[in-house]
């Protein structure tokens, strides 16, 4: 199948690639760029394990063609740690509040939560639950994931999150 050239920014770096028109963004990211943090869980857009950020929107990269990302600005889980390499507030929140077990949904969950907090820096529990409705976890359930996001919101806002101390 004839290939097309694309160029885009991924985690702040300009990358170029040759892709078939049908190549999925998730495969381009995982197999050509070797960024394997985003995962494939369902192939149908239900589970959200493949979530990345594209031009300030959450996208499910298993439902997006790589060609659609031409010229875009993408952030994956590999690009969200603090500049000094320490865990971001969300990454830390997931660890501190035990928001994961097998870790397979976690990168997608964190990328979705990242966008949610950009758009709503102080979400209620209900808003968080609606906000991550497109991301499934099979191990942990959502109670601790919600707490992880609340932890991160509090840390970013400089407010207290009493449950963090428990």
């Amino acid at each position: 199948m004839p290939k097309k050239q694309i160029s885009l920014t991924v985690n702040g770096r300009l990358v170029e690639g040759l892709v078939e028109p049908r190549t999925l963004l998730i495969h381009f990211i995982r197999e050509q760029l070797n960024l394997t943090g985003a995962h494939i869980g369902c192939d149908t857009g239900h589970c959200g394990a493949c979530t990345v950020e594209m031009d300030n929107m959450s996208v499910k990269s298993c439902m997006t063609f790589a060609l659609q990302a031409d010229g875009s600005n993408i952030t994956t889980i590999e690009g969200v740690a603090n500049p000094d390499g320490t865990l971001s507030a969300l990454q830390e929140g997931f660890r501190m509040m035990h928001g994961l077990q097998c870790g397979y949904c976690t990168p997608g969950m964190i990328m979705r939560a990242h966008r949610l907090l950009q758009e709503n820096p102080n979400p209620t529990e209900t808003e968080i639950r609606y906000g991550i409705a497109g991301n499934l976890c099979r191990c942990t359930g959502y109670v601790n994931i919600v707490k992880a996001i609340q932890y991160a919101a509090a840390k970013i806002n400089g407010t207290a999150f009493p449950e963090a101390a428990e």
Partner: protein
Amino acid sequence: MNQQTPIDIERSERTDKLQGMGCKRKRVEDIRFTQGKGNYVDDIKLPGMLFGDFVRSPHAHARIISIDTTRAKALPGVIAVLTAADLKPLGLHYMPTLAGDVQAVLAEEKVLFQNQEVAFVIAEDRYIAADAIELVDVVYDALPCIVDPYKSMSPDAPILREDIKDKMVGAHGPRKHPNHIFEWQIGDQKATDEVFSKADVTIKEMFVDHRTHPSPLETCQCIASMDKIKGELTLWGTFQAPHVIRTVVSLISGLPEHKIHVIAPDIGGGFGNKVGAYSGYVCSVVGSIVLGKPVKWVEDRMENLSTTSFARDYHMTTELAATNEGKILAMRVHVLADHGAFDACADPSKWPAGFMNICTGSYDIPVAHLSVDGVYTNKASGGVAYRCSFRVTEAVFAIERAVEVLAHKLGMDSAELRMKNFIKPEQFPYRAALGWEYDSGDYPTAMKKAMEAINYKQLRQEQAEKREAFRRGETREIMGIGISFFTEIVGAGPSKNCDILGVAMFDSAEIRIHPTGSIIARMGTKSQGQGHETTYAQIIATELGIPADDIMIEEGNTDTAPYGLGTYG
């Protein structure tokens, strides 16, 4: 809260210092998982790696008239297409299951469930493989299929397993019908029937614990890589029990076990789904042996849901006999177990229905009888321990629901009925009517504590008030209260009861202490999210007095880890 003694304080300080058992140690795994730096099977890339994909049956039951792979093989980038005809000379078109049956690796003359594996395409990349499966031309002659297990043993039922239709004694004894797998009976039928015939009160209900799929977020996948020069096979995969997989691969392939290296990297959830051996593993291994190149196989979600092991599917006709005062006198259970097209049940016990005979639960029931009939249907095979079953979940559902039904019939509070029938603390060790020995317990105290914790009396009062208000038409809100009290068998042991492949259920640890005092500990288990790297280190820290942060836990590599039967749940 009790006053802490100096010893308690010292112990707690020691625990905190070591990050040992009892402290809230943050998970060490999360450092990599939160950064997308886990290492799952599909993250692994090997030079020259090929991709496998299955041609699957659109029919639940059909005769295969012909398979033509010409068009698929002609597609550029397709390396090979395997069918049963290729595997048969190697004796690999069927593989043994963990339950004493055999299972088709690739369908030979018939398909027995929808999406059953018919051909395996190996190509240079996963897109070409996906294209090629559509170019394999299979002609089917559809047959009537059985989806209702109650119809499996009808006189006019179509015979599903033609490969064993004349074999009227299966792995677990005589078969009553070509679609019958086994009958398992335990308990005293005569004495039980007698009690039922004279009892004040009896109840009988059929409970269906429906088919469930474990559905871990990561599907089943593997990479097989055969080094033809050294004659060694390396198999990476989503294996809850890597050592068992190595043994199975050795038994199936004929490769000596010491020349097979099985590696289970990070696993994205298991829940029992990743215990069994699947066609994808066998076909990838065969592909790699034939081609001398690594072959990767990754299921998609539909394949995972429709073909890999399910859980439950027990149809349980449950009866209790009791006195008017609510003393349970006997229990009688018949289970119709739908095992799908092959008996690939992964209960690591010596019985075909796992631990179903714990169905007398936490109660002192003098006599009982359990019979289980396993049957074939046109569904995917399985029967795995989805979230701590081994059929205990099914058994608990049967007894606890039956107790509720009995309470309703007697007009008694179901918590009170439970209290009345618990095995009493002074009865331990207690031998249950269906064979299990219960070593210790104090069920009435546990129940009382739980009732007090939720303020049961007040809840019942609130319920009564809400019902009254509902009856008066003042509100549409009513309230239900559910109670379950169960005794579970956790862990798969001892080996007198628990076994897979005659290996017996056990696990091992090897702890090495380095000259500087740090530790590497290797286990035969394999975490799929349970956090072994964190918690095992805590156990060792407490036992040996070395800080958990100085202890590395390694699992999943059969070359370095001692033998074990893996992690279930």
